[in-house]
């Protein structure tokens, strides 16, 4: 334990996802000891990002406006919707240049043990988007791990009631990982070889 404000900084940093006590301490001392480190720049970006960045009202992607750049782009094909867990997965798929449709960001995956059920994700919003009949195919691109698969199973069961083609990314993706770590070539191939589930 350190005194006062130093410990407070370590505690705050430790609250961030993926940062354990040791990393928090290392970052805190980097901030304290590195003169070239621009603290005011970091703090203003933090404040700005909270003020400016919102989530797209339509798809849930991060956006500086009410709707995101992809949803506003008239060149995108509105008959395809690709469902992903996080906004960072949109970035990963955009890198492949394989997909020209729209996205739907769920905000996570179903994980009952963490208390996350279907109602905690943006699934109701997805159903609303599908209601007007524009969408012909829903491509489920949740992570190729257990929670991602469970979410895909739930969604395909739910979407079976609609007259929409549902497909899942090809299993060429290595199992157990996060989508964001898949390289462009593998991810692109997974899109081409997606299989129909219903």
């Amino acid at each position, binding site marked *: 334990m350190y005194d006062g404000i130093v410990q407070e900084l370590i505690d705050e940093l430790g609250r961030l*996802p*993926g*940062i*354990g006590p040791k*990393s928090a301490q290392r970052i805190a001392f980097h901030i304290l000891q590195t003169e070239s480190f621009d603290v005011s720049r970091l703090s203003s970006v933090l404040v700005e990002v909270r003020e400016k960045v919102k989530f797209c009202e339509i798809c849930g992607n991060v956006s500086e406006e009410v709707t995101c750049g992809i949803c506003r782009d008239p060149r995108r094909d509105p008959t395809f919707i690709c469902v992903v867990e996080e906004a960072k997965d949109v970035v990963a798929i955009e890198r492949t240049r394989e997909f020209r449709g729209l996205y739907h960001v769920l905000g996570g995956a*179903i*994980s*009952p*043990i*963490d*208390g996350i*059920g279907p109602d905690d994700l943006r699934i109701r919003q997805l159903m609303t988007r599908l209601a007007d009949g524009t969408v012909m195919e829903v491509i489920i691109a949740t992570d*190729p*791990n*257990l929670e991602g*698969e*469970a979410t895909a*199973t*739930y969604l395909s*069961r739910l979407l079976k009631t609609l007259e929409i083609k549902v497909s899942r990314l090809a299993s060429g*993706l*290595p*199992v*157990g*990982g*996060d989508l964001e*770590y*898949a*390289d462009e070539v*593998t991810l692109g191939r997974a899109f081409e070889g997606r299989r129909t589930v219903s």
Partner: protein
Amino acid sequence: MPTYRDEGVVLRTHKLGEADRIVTLLTKGHGKVRAVAKGVRRTSSKFGARLEPFMVADIQFYEGRSLDTIQQAETIASYGADIVDDYPRFTAASVMVETADKVTELEGSPQQYLLLVGALRSLSRQEHPTELTLDSYLLRALSLAGWAPTFDSCARCGEVGPHESFVVQLGGMVCVKCAPPGAPHIVPDVVLLLDALVRGEWDAAEAHTQQNWSKASALVSAYTQWHLERTLRSLEHVAK
């Protein structure tokens, strides 16, 4: 280098840092173990899906000061794919691993390990209806932890039954004198069903009506929540 080897079933995982995970396992001989799997979230990881929930693996651990590290993992049995294929099976399995996590808080045992692996295997092979497999697992896991429910004699005074009331807080069926006012009455058939589930008498359990299965499920849920002294987060997401 202090290392050890054991077989274990993965209960849950947490993301750690950029690409690592903390894996919580129930092992056969070392109780519950929390260990770091390095680089497991990268799609190039040598571990692949071997350290996902419901997987049973032969694992080599490197002992650390606070957390152990997983050096090697070889799959013994893989139930995840068949479980995740069906949403109710997935939610049932989630309740099982969360319960296993809680009942082994202080100390694990080879029996708890074998019970869980057996239940996951049975679930993945759809040997019995999903809800019965879950309820039987819960009753048996609690029994192994020392909280076996009483069905024949009164749970409080021991008077020989059959009795009519089931009181979760008292540990099972109770006689008229011991039952608090308003204690719920239970039809004898449901008591027989609960008893069959504890014993794993599947033919007897499956012969009951769907309505009795649901009544038994509600009691088993209440009994489990009470004894674990907290809410099982996964229980409210169980799909029918």
